[in-house]
């Protein structure tokens, strides 16, 4: 029948467009993931990997305090960073969207995210310059006589959090701003017209409407933060290790590939849980 031939031919052509990308994703994302999952079930014997297919590594993870602690350190840092970043970024986005004159807004936004474009490694290093024992802050504080001895700012969790917050304030300002400006001004006028005061308008109208932007940004923050090795490694030092640092340690000094794979799977599970929690705000839509 005519309908079958025309429409199936179209379909076959469509597969031609989609298949290369799908194949790439399967070959270099799905299969590697499965390989890694399989290796997490293996055991390290010297420098070799023996496929034992058991859950020993996972059991070890929950038994060994220094491994489990990595996860908790990561979670604590990530939640702290996400919350502080949202709290700092929302007013910034709001001021840019509301207080800065229209024609300067784009400029203000570009300025607010400009350091985003420094190299990731260099950005953490720059914070080291600021926070180091002989760095800018200690120098300034000593100079004005507020402290007598330099503070231990670098190689602390605080340093890690500051480094992260710096990065994610920029990211969140961008997503929240985008959400604020696409909100029709009439909603606000209508609410004010119906007798809501400034705070009520914010709480009942603006906040719920910008929640999707906040959630998208917060989720991105969570994913990028919990999986990051650089920032805790450069700024946090080796006093307490975040999960990615623990993973890299398995890979490097201990050469325990199966354990590194196990920890990665656990990291992946945590991110997936976060995704499920935020899923309803993260729908991808075509405009």
């Amino acid at each position, binding site marked *: 029948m005519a309908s079958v031939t025309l429409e199936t031919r179209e379909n076959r052509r*469509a*597969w*031609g*467009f*989609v298949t290369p*990308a*799908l194949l*790439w*994703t399967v070959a*270099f*994302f*799905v299969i*590697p993931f499965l*390989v*890694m999952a399989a*290796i997490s079930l293996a055991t390290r014997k010297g420098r070799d990997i023996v496929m034992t297919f058991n859950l020993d590594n996972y059991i070890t993870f929950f038994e060994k305090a220094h491994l489990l602690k990595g996860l908790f350190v990561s979670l604590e840092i990530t939640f702290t960073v996400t919350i502080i970043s949202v709290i700092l970024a929302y007013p910034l986005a709001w001021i*840019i969207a509301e*207080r800065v004159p229209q024609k300067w807004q784009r400029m203000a936004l*570009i*300025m*607010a995210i*400009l*350091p985003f*474009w*420094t*190299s*990731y*490694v*260099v950005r953490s*290093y*720059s914070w*080291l*310059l*600021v926070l*180091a024992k*002989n*760095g*800018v802050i200690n*120098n*300034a504080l000593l100079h004005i006589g507020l402290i007598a001895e330099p503070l231990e700012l670098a190689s602390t969790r605080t340093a890690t959090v500051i480094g992260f917050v*710096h990065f994610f304030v920029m990211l969140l300002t961008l997503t929240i701003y985008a959400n604020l400006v696409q909100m029709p001004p009439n909603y606000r006028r209508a609410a004010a017209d119906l007798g809501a*005061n400034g705070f009520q308008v914010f709480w009942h109208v603006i906040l719920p409407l910008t929640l999707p932007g906040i959630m998208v940004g917060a989720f991105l923050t969570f*994913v990028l933060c919990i*999986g*990051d*090795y650089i920032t805790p490694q*450069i700024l946090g030092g080796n006093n307490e290790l975040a999960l990615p640092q623990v*993973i890299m340690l398995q*890979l490097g000094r201990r050469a325990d*590939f199966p354990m590194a*794979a196990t920890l*990665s799977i656990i*990291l*992946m599970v945590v*991110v*997936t849980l976060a995704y499920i929690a935020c899923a309803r705000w993260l729908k*991808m*839509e*075509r*405009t």
Partner: protein
Amino acid sequence: MISPRFSKIASWVYLAALYGFIFLPVAVLVLFSFQDGRLPVPPFNGVTLKWYGEVFADSRLMSALGNSLMVAIGSSLVACVLGFCAAYGLARYILPASRLQRGLLVAPMTVSYLIIALGLLSTFNWLGVSLSLWTVGIGHVVINLPLCFAIIYASMGDHQKNIERAARDLGAAEWQVMTQISAPMLMPSILAAFFLSVTFSWDEFIIAFLLSRFDVTLPVEIWSMLRSGLNPKTNAVGSVVFLVSVALLLILELIVFRRTAKK
């Protein structure tokens, strides 16, 4: 009630404070890249360009810079072509399980780079593939493909679908529709995807670190420089990277967004 005047002043103070926070490390980085001395920390001893001279004389750094550009441009091109084709197929045709396909294509976006890197490392080890810039490039396509696909797919509206129908109706074959209508029409978003992908790849560390061996990219080379501690040369190379990225951003702003805004 807070008086409007107070809230206005508070706004500007907050704005200034946050900008200060955002720019502090960059300002310190750039300032001490000119430090006439061995340490990039106060006091500031005066201006010299010697560290920039050292950066440009450093053959390892320069080859790492070249490698980074090569990997970034190459992997972004591949990601854009694959992403555009997939977006075209999924936005323009009815395919079985298209939701699942879209989900699969964007899935790497929700996974930490560290995990993607480890997965690829496991697989390459298992298959006996030796690590090189090629393996780094493959990894970067994996992280940039979802981005390119999502950006281009999001820009394919139904209005453009009708425009493509019109082209087909006027006798254009499928490849002509794609190359002469869809791609030029979607060029702003394709370019946006490309440049974004270049900046991501150019700056990416963990995949480049784990999947490379002898030839490395710039972030990895900078990482190894950090072992020597605080050093104005690192400031200088960091400032150069910043300038290059900002230049890329400016190009994106001028070429892509201006064009979009005009329409």
